[in-house]
């Protein structure tokens, strides 16, 4: 029934469609690859907080009380090395024994604050409550506050900063 001309046109139509789809893919594949760049890391790149950072001398920290310190971590931030300041909660148990907690709430990432009146850490966002030992008491957080590795050297406190996966029951470090 079909005229040879119509048949030819249909064939050409299909061919043109395939050609256009191919051109589309040629543009899209590198574009998507570029967009997914964050998944590919340069080899040999230091992960942030892989090393212990100096958080300052220990002597000023009163024994037995929670104290907010700032930890400066240098990490690769796009085109430059940047210093990021992180908040860490520090309690000196004895002379050289120190407990260090990350100030980031394991629920959704708000900065938790020590409330001396209630003797508890409170998350200002969604109402998480943690005890003086960092364990969860109340609210939506799935686990206790995250402990950070620390050591004392020459009277100074050295802390290893680490981001943790939020919203899960176990403390899982986020691999950088």
């Amino acid at each position, binding site marked *: 029934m079909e005229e040879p001309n119509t048949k030819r046109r249909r064939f050409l139509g299909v061919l043109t469609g395939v050609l256009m789809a191919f051109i589309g893919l040629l543009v899209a594949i590198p574009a998507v690859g570029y967009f997914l760049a964050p998944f590919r890391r340069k080899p040999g790149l230091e992960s942030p907080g892989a090393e212990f950072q100096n958080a300052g001398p220990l002597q000023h920290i009163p024994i037995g009380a929670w104290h*907010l310190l700032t930890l400066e971590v240098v990490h690769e931030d796009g085109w430059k090395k940047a210093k990021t300041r992180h908040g860490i909660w520090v309690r000196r148990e004895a002379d050289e024994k120190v407990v260090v907690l990350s100030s980031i709430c394991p629920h959704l990432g708000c*900065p938790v604050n020590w409330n001396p009146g209630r003797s508890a850490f409170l998350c200002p966002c969604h109402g998480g409550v943690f005890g003086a030992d960092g364990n969860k008491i109340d*609210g939506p957080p799935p686990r206790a506050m995250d402990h950070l590795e620390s050591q004392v050297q020459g009277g100074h406190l050295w802390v290893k900063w680490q981001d943790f996966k939020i919203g899960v029951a176990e403390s899982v470090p986020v691999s950088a």
Partner: protein
Amino acid sequence: MQTGQEQPPQPGFWEHRTGWMLLRKLLFLEPLPGGSRWAAAFGSLLLFSFVLQVVTGILLSMNYAPAIATAWPSVKFIQNEVSLGAFIRAVHHWGSSAMVILLLVHLVQVFVWGAYKKPRELTWMVGVLLLCCVLGLAFTGYLLPWDQKAYWATKVGLGIASTVPIVGDDLRTLLQGGPQMGNLTLTRFFTIHTFLLPGLLILLVVVHLYLFRLHGVTPAPWESAALHKAQEEPFWPGQVLKDGVVWLVFLVGLGLWCYYWPAPLEEQADPSQPYEARPEWYFMFYFRILRYFDGPLEVVGTFVLPLVFFLLLFLWPFLDRNPHRDPRRRPLAMGLLSLGSCGLIGLTIFAIVTDVRMTEPVQAAAKTAAQKAEPAGPIQRADVAKIYQTNCAACHGIDGSGKHIRAGMPSIPDFTSMAWQMSKTDLEITHRIQDGDEPLMPAFRDKLSQPEMLALAIYVRAFASGPTEAEALAPIKPPAAPGASQMSPTQIYRAYCLACHDADGRGQTAHKAMPGLPDFADPKWQSAHTDGEFKLAILNGKGKFMPPMKDKLGPEDANKMVVYMRAFGGGKQVVKIEHEHPFVPPALEGPGVESAPKESAKTAVRLRAATGLYRQYCLVCHGSDGRGQEMRASMPVIPDFTNPALQKQVSNPQLATYILDGKGTLMPSFRGRVNDEQAQDLVAYVRAFRPASADTPVAPTGDFDKRFRELQNQWNELDKQLKKLSAPK
């Protein structure tokens, strides 16, 4: 005439070339069944509010730089310095809220009207996608100012994204541009906010409008199709006029709102500081809901609920099988709508009202602690010494020099250093005591009362102005002059650069004398030179007047100063000068001041002030010994203050005039920087360079104070005589 109407008119010049009649007919003359109506203006108002966002957004992006170091400063620049910047930013900020409200109103309107029913299902679905675009724009735009609010709200937003099952972490990494929030997060959000989502939104708006035109305005349920057809009216001008009136009301309302309520901008983002993160008001209901999903149920709140809500909304035209459009005959849909809107509005109000900020109890606790610490009577000097010894001496030392701990704490200031004292205002010292400087300097706001901290600041000042009780207890040698590397860039700038380059880096005072003097605040000049060039100029000098500093500054200091100088760009940095109390500890060079006899305390204070002024303004050219040797090459006429013959030629009032009003082309006027009394003291100071006798080139320091007082008396005599002469009889 008759025939002319039947035949299409001959196309004119433009019509022939553009065919614009067809376009006009398509865009403006399309018949609207049912005629123009106010209710139809909502959709177009929404489009208008989007156009307003595009216009203000483009304007804002002209002054915005999406990087961590620049985002917040550039927004602050828009807010404070760009003309109309605060207003444009307010229109963009509040306009986004207005757009969300209009969108919800439009959605409810279409829902009640039943306008999503056959054949308009796709129009509705595209509308829901548009809603997602707008919410996405709101979320990505929220981060861009990079203030505390932006940082933490986005941190939580990304946290929510990461709880999505399976792909959560990847989604977060993709949005964040890396393992943690940083530069790449800003650039990604900026691109999504300014290119991706607006582009997608425009595409969807075109589809939405096309579908709307295709199916026409939905007639009211009680209107018959025939009546609807009979009331037909072209889009132009009836509907456009109504649209325009609504737009105008909206524009004036938004403009007035923005005039009275500027867009907020908080402190620059600092991940180490506690902050009470809150989303924008239209997300408050959701923020509240998240509190109720504990532990493993969290994903229900963060992912399942929103997904179900949007899927319901998206597919609603196919879920609602009721064939009627009249709201009175759709009890289920209307019930769901009223339940949903009451729930959302109620929850939003509930969330905002019950949102107890935690700062309140903490502040209250701090206040009570402070009150406890407050002593009953006025603070005695001995009390302050005690406070210092208990709280500060451990690090700063009983002598305030902090030298015993400097090896381990290189940044500890030396209170006895003139450079340090000059670089700090009283307020800065009080604030430093109050808020500390983590991690080394602890905050004392909870330990000490306000008056105690003030008293401590004064006590700290006393380390430089003379022996304190503490020093009397433990006498120490005057500290050595701080090397440049111990000085902060501000201190270095004050000591070596300020005299010519001015407090704001513009160098206007000396510009007449030194035409090549650059304006640091000029961004063009800043961008025309590299850091390397600047460093070279600082170390090796430049041109006729810029002296080489390599004997005073090391390469590291030079690097610091390049950064410091860059900060003047755009006129954003001004070095503080304390006109009233130039505060100076014993001078370490120039005429020997440290040996001034103690009995003339008042004179000593003035002399110290004069020393400070001399160092600040005169030393660069005239040198610490008053000979001006360093500058003589480029300024042959610079006087040698130690030359008695030269000193004799000039009278005291003349010298003061030179200081205040300048001399020749090279000596700038210092009026406004020093007052008359200070000029007087500077004259005395300059006089003190003159050797006691012509044989000895340098004055024996012992009788400096004596001669200073003599000169002052002479000056006062002359002043009196002048006043007598000039007084009208």
